[in-house]
């Protein structure tokens, strides 16, 4: 679409990520990076399990759930029996497979993706309440994180015309 024909183009997106599996974290990262690539301001707020994506010890280890995921299929499209997903190593194997597929599409690992977003001027924040809940401190977070916010602080950043809040 030609953005020139769009009367009121989007100026800012505020994206909230509360889950720590591959699909939710990557949805957040793709949306945020896509925004900065289009010249749209992006603020990303990681909370609850989403904090894994910006926690040094966890960010390289995110997985996709293989149990209770009806969209899960075998390579080739056959159904994936839930009981298989419970076996040790299956979740790790499936996650590794997904990551290798993403790598082929030039989708970077989480840490590199976050760097791409901040290189483009996007900002990454952690939720104070969830940090307290998980007993995390600022030193546990990825270095590029701009700070720890309360929900009120976050809303304070979400003002302005043509701003959208997106909850992945």
């Amino acid at each position, binding site marked *: 679409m*030609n953005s*020139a024909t769009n009367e009121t183009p989007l100026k800012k997106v505020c994206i909230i990520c509360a889950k720590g599996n591959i699909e939710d974290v990557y949805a957040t990262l*793709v949306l945020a*990076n*896509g925004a*900065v*690539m*289009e*010249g749209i301001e992006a603020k990303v707020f990681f909370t609850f399990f989403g904090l894994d994506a910006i926690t040094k010890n966890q960010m390289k280890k995110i997985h996709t759930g293989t149990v209770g995921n009806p969209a899960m299929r075998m390579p080739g499209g056959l159904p994936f029996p839930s009981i298989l997903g419970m076996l040790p190593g299956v979740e790790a194997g499936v996650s590794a497979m997904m990551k290798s597929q993403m790598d082929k*599409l*030039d*989708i*970077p690992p989480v840490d*590199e993706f976050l*760097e*791409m977003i901040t*290189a*483009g*001027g996007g900002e990454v924040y952690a939720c104070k309440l969830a940090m307290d809940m998980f007993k995390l401190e600022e030193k546990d977070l990825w270095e590029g994180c701009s700070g720890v916010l309360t929900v009120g602080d976050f809303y304070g950043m979400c003002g302005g015309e043509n701003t959208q809040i997106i909850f992945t």
Partner: protein
Amino acid sequence: MAQKTIAGKTVEVNAEGYLENPSDWTKEIAVEIADEIGIRLTDKHFEVLDYLRKEHAAGTQLSVRRVGKSGITDIKGLYELFPGGPLKYSSKIAGIPKPASCV
């Protein structure tokens, strides 16, 4: 398909102003398209443009990440060179199609 005269040369462009034929591209056209966007081209810009044109001709799927690994500039540098559109503006100025890339 629309025609447009850029830097004294009549070329075919799409609805968004991207050149239809990368072979129509000249440095003068690049300067004029960049001027419309509000970017003043430097030698560094041309290095990126040359890279994009070469990779496009080779059939590479271009992305911000790939340009960031080109050795010409990093991603931050690319954003500084082409503010608000590291991939879409650089491609437009380079006379290649808008990359259908989400990364």
